[in-house]
């Protein structure tokens, strides 16, 4: 081991492996880390965030509790992974076989038990400022994707923040403005006729030609714009969107990335020939085109009833797709610069309920990290013996968001300003999860 020459200096992991953890203490390693994040050197160029909307169970994915009573451990058995001593739940077979590439955080917890609030906390790194309802779409703070769009941006013509196939509840730009809202790609990339809608003029219409429409629009568009941002003029947002739309129409890179038909059948199979699989593949193509932040918003993870029969069908394809993505990125040499994340609002209740489901549970959740300079083969933190609550290395959504920001080269402690001059830290606690920083 090269103690002094490693890429980011002496890491906490190195210390632990040498048994130096207690000797050096947290202070020393964290000061090294602070220096690392202060230099702002990005470990990742892109982030693919897989959002399992509804709140995926931690028991049936990455945090099985075989020793808990049956009403808690559920129907599934644990399976070993490539890393001795680390176990996943039984359907996670492909991911288990590449555990050396993954880091699983089992100890993020928070205090927001409903979808609206949980999504807000995890997507923005900030808790909702007032209590919000379960189905709420609320925004008190810019989402991570919007901040990356604003702080890092993308190549001209390409939106920096994509979400497929729909925006998550709190995935919006808040005060950063429409320019940094996600570009939504809906439709099914798994179907033969898939195209990203409206990014080119419909071929089947003979008369549809640009024929100087742009100039005509300039001539007729006389509506007064209220330039002061405090006014919140929606016409300004429309201008931003119009301009982005034009850029996209003119961008060859974007058009090529959208054309998933160019992908060899073997690769398409690797991701799974289903909607989720092909959307994930589309995300990889967008990463290749230079898009820094992509959210895959996958609904249907709110398993209040019949969780086991439902997951019997759902988990194998999920496992295949995520493992396929990580393997494919790795083989292309893109994994080192692409951070893959898998999470939802929260974990699920320990006791299987009377309907055979599990309910919302924010005291414990598991998050998968891979790539983007994340040291693989680690499990960070732990829940108690029955999976009730994170009890070891307890981490917050703020730590999670700060990790994502630090990896992509955004200083999570930076202060942004809303239109009325109100300052806001990107993340109130800018401390990343050090074990993941490599």
């Amino acid at each position: 081991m090269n103690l002094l020459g490693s890429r980011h200096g002496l890491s906490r992991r190195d210390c632990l492996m040498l048994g130096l953890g207690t000797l050096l203490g947290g202070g020393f390693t964290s000061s090294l880390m602070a220096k690392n994040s202060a230099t702002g050197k990005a470990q990742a160029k892109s982030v693919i965030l897989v959002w399992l909307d509804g709140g995926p169970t931690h028991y049936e994915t990455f945090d099985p509790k075989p020793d808990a009573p049956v009403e808690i451990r559920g129907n599934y058995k644990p399976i070993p992974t490539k890393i001795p001593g680390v176990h996943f739940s039984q359907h996670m077979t492909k991911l288990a076989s590449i555990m050396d590439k993954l880091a699983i955080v089992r100890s993020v917890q928070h205090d927001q038990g409903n979808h609206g609030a949980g999504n807000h906390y995890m997507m923005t790194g900030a808790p909702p400022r007032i209590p919000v309802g379960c189905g709420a779409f609320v925004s008190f703070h810019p989402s991570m994707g919007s901040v990356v769009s604003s702080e890092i941006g993308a190549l001209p013509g390409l939106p920096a923040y994509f979400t497929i196939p729909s925006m998550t509840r709190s995935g919006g730009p808040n005060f950063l403005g429409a320019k940094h809202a996600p570009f939504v790609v809906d439709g099914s990339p798994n179907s033969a006729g898939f195209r990203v809608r409206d990014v080119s003029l419909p071929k089947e219409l003979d008369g549809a030609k640009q024929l100087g429409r742009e100039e005509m629009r300039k001539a007729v568009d006389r509506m007064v714009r209220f330039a002061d941002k405090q006014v919140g003029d929606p016409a300004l947002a429309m201008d931003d969107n119009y301009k982005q739309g034009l850029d996209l129409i003119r961008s060859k890179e974007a058009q090529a990335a959208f054309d998933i038909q160019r992908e060899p059948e073997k690769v398409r199979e690797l991701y799974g020939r289903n909607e989720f699989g092909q959307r994930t593949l589309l995300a990889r193509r967008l990463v290749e085109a230079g898009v820094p932040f992509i959210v895959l918003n996958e609904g249907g993870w709110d398993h209040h009833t019949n969780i086991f029969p439902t997951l019997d069908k759902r988990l194998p394809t999920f496992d295949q797709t995520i493992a396929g993505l990580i393997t494919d990125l790795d083989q292309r040499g893109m994994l080192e610069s692409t951070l893959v994340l898998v999470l939802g609002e929260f974990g699920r209740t320990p006791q299987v309920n009377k309907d055979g489901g599990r309910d919302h549970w924010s005291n414990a959740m598991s998050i998968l990290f891979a790539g983007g300079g994340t040291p693989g083969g680690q499990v960070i933190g732990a829940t108690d013996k029955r999976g009730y609550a994170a009890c070891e290395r307890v981490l917050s959504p703020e730590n999670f968001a700060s990790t994502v920001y630090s990896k992509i080269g955004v200083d999570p402690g930076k202060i942004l300003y809303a239109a009325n001059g109100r300052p806001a830290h990107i993340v109130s606690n800018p401390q990343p999860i050090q074990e993941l920083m490599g």
Partner: protein
Amino acid sequence: MFVGSLLLINQQGNLKVEPALIQFQNLQDQVQLRVVDNLGVDFTSKATFKSSDTKTISVSATGEVKPLQSGNTSIIATFGNLTATSTVNSQIDKSKVPTFEKDIQPILTRFGCNSGPCHGKQRGQNGFQLSLLAFDDDFDFGAIVTEARGRRIFPSSPESSILLMKATGAVPHGGGKKLDPESTAYKQLLSWIKVGTPRTPKSEPKIIALEITPANLILPPKTKVQVRAIAKFEDGNSKDVTHLSAFQSSESVLTSVDSKGLIETGSLPGEVAIMARYMEKFAICYVTMPLTGATKTKLPARISSDHFIDTLLSNKFEKLGLSPSEPANDSVLVRRMYLDIIGRLPTPEETRAWLNEKSPDKVRNLAVQLVNRPEYAEFWANKWADLLRPNPYHVGIKAVFVLHTWLRDAFRKNLPYDQFSREIITAEGSTFRDGASVFIRDKRTPEEITTVVSRLFLGVRLECAKCHHHPFEVYGQEDFYQFAAFFARIGRKGVGISAPISGSEEMFFLSKKGTVKHPRTNEEMKPAPLKGKPMEFGEDEDPRAALAKWITSKDNNLFAKAGANRIWGDLMGRGLVDPVDDLRATNPPTNPELLDALAEEFRKSDFDMKKFIVTIVTSNAYRLSSVPNEKNLMDTRNHSRHYRNRPRAEVLLDMVCDVTGVKDSFPAMPQDSRAMEMWTFRSASEFLDSFGRPDPNQDPPCERLPDSTVVQALHLMNGKGVQAKILSDNGRAAQLAASPVSLESAVEELYLRCYSRMPTKQEMQKVLTLASDQKLNKRQALENVLWALINSPEFVLVD
């Protein structure tokens, strides 16, 4: 002016201390002082305090007074060369010992021990569980005193009780150090353990309210004000609980509050609510920071009118130093009225007629005319469909269609809002005949119905109360299940919901049986209105009828307010309470006086929605331009200018159809239907999806997204449907091109259709020049003009 004087140094020489007389009976009591001058300017944080007898009474630098023994003395507050005195009368009654409910629970709540993230969560923390925010005294007493074999309390050595050792951090505590051994709270806990952990006798007066004083503040930037929290008891007594209250600011960057109730304003103008919470009670202090300098020289302009809406809005503008915008011009106004009231654009003929109309009553006349058009019913029914329309895959296609018909009919008949609400709340009959009954086919349990009914008709969100007492709400679990008990006796016959197809008929009637139980106590709940008395019903009496009567009664302020606020929000772009269905003390209206007056007006009209709409539209406030001035550009919620907004998806699609002269076609709809007439969100339309109609794949369909997006911009630019309409041989552009009218008149017609105004000379010149430069024929030129008009914000927005 009041505000101006705040900036001056007190020169009047009148300083006073609140309270002027303090009486102590208990060594654990504590009182927070405030020091103010005769104008109410706060000097607490600048004053120094001195006890005249430090053996009897102590006072901290921040004005916290504590008794040490019996005796009479005083506290002297000094600021500069001014002094003021508070008399203290301490008669310690040693027989008074702290008891659990009255003295200990407030401490556990104040220091967050029983909060959600700590021991209040459902499984507790490290084996120690308390009820969330102390809503279950028996449970908590058991957890502290008897559970864990009593090891949390050591009566023989009270100081060594784990409860105390953890709280002070003397032994490791996951929650950190919560209490200082020198604090009043610690001493209280200790003395409670010493005297044998007594419970509070049931006869002890109960707390009925919390007050925060002062409750309203208008403050300049960078100012500090001390507030006090006072608990009121049922026997008429009150007690200072500032030190046991938790304080929170709704916008801490604008105005912060510390743990002792000291408020400090920042440098930005705005409005903030400071909340104090003591046990399950809370109180709010409203802090307003006007625009700096705005009120120094002269009063801001008012909206000139004697309409009550204008008067009450203007009062608020004065308070904040806002100046209203100018009135909008006639073109903007006519377009706004058509789109807001009937959800469609005026035709060129209608616009011309309006622009030529000279009557001083022309706004009222048009408003009355519009609410009586058939499109009114389609448009407002469509809004309510967002709130009530179920997924046809869940309840069946026919049922959804029957509900849609019922809704449309209700608005066509102008069913008074109270009757409309009653019909939904008490719905009975067949899902194939009685539209309102489809609502209870969709929402199948008393709990589900409760959350929707309370939100829609009272603006009260009870979801949280279902599981626990909400920290920011006045309603608890008991309230929720008592409310749900009204829906316990809904009888059902026929085929229920059986996925994937639930197309059959179902009937609803009054059943003789059916109960709702409290999930914690398993007690059978008697129906009771929110914060009302439990009610008894005979076998033939329908509890829902009684509930509907209570909800829609003219004495029920929430009903009128929630209804009025929703309609206000529809017309004015934002509710006085926002979101419109979230009325609670911790989400106050921007203008409470106006909301009260609107509710009163709505009631007085016998809940006639058409009349109420006309009332709002005929205010001058409705007519204000969206163009801001220097003194209102930051206003986004006080209605000193009109707020631009984008019409809902269906309206916008109908607008595109109208201006292009080409109708859309929708699956499961008759030929030539308008988008506004659709009965389901499940009918495919790329346009409607792009513009954020509720997502049909969600059940229930999600809320509408009001934001504009790149997808929308692209759809207007390139969308196949929109393009086909612009380029259609039967479309507006082609027809105008084929007609003998000049290119110039044709362009005017398109302007009138899209923007409800004529093009300016300059605009016309540019358009004609471009058309000739680009060598476009007449039809191509008109197609391009139409495309350009549709793709501009002036078309997409209601200005």
